[in-house]
């Protein structure tokens, strides 16, 4: 009888150990499946360009940015168009003339 009880206890203990081990094993698997390792985002591959300091260009800079010289020319054209519009207003001061539209890309 004592031997039987001893055997029963050993069996229960073994089952408990096996259940704990199984639980631990399955818990770590589920955690691994939730927390996927984060991979670094692939950087946009830009074609190599000569005479361009890539380190000075911010990552968010649009690749289709116009050169500074073109931008300065656009500013000059904008100022000239605005002056012409202002001259028209001064020649004939009306509200319509004051707020007349130009073809400048800065205002369209």
């Amino acid at each position, binding site marked *: 009888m004592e031997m039987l009880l001893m055997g029963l206890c050993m069996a229960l203990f073994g089952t408990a150990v096996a259940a704990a081990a199984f639980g631990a094993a399955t818990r770590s698997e589920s955690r691994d499946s939730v927390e996927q390792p984060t991979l670094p985002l692939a950087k946009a591959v830009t074609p190599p360009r000569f005479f361009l300091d890539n380190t000075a260009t911010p990552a968010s800079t649009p690749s289709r940015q116009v050169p*500074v010289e073109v931008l300065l020319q656009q*500013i*000059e054209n904008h*100022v000239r168009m605005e002056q012409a519009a202002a001259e028209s207003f001064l020649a004939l001061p009306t509200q319509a003339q004051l707020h007349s539209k130009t073809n400048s890309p800065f205002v369209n």
Partner: protein
Amino acid sequence: MEQELLNGVSSAEAGQVLELGTRMVVPAGTSLFRLGDPADRLFLVERGRIKLTLPMSVRGREEDVFVEERAPGQAVGWSALIPPYRFTLTATAALYDAQVIALPREALLKYFVANPAAGYKIALNLAVVVGHRLQLFQTMWLREMQRTVETHSA
């Protein structure tokens, strides 16, 4: 060539005024004066064009941005007659060599004292030049303000 600053002045008086000055050739791309320089001479454009610019930050770089252009017959640098006698723009010969007559302030003021009638007419002409610039830029400023208001209230 008719100079806007000498409108209504007799040819003899205009000749006397021009004799006060010195002819200067400004090579293309060279500055006649720069923003903040002491302004002790007024310039009359005889040939070429003088581009007036102001510094502006463009993509983090300071660039001279076009403000206005002065053609033959027009005056440049009237800061020479208005305190605190500092240029408020940069003037550069655009594209081609320019030729100007540089009139020293001191000589000009002495002439006005000695010839008040001519001085009066020249001062009125200067007021027209200054007034036109004021009206022009006031209008341009208001147009920009209107656009700013439209953008922010949209």
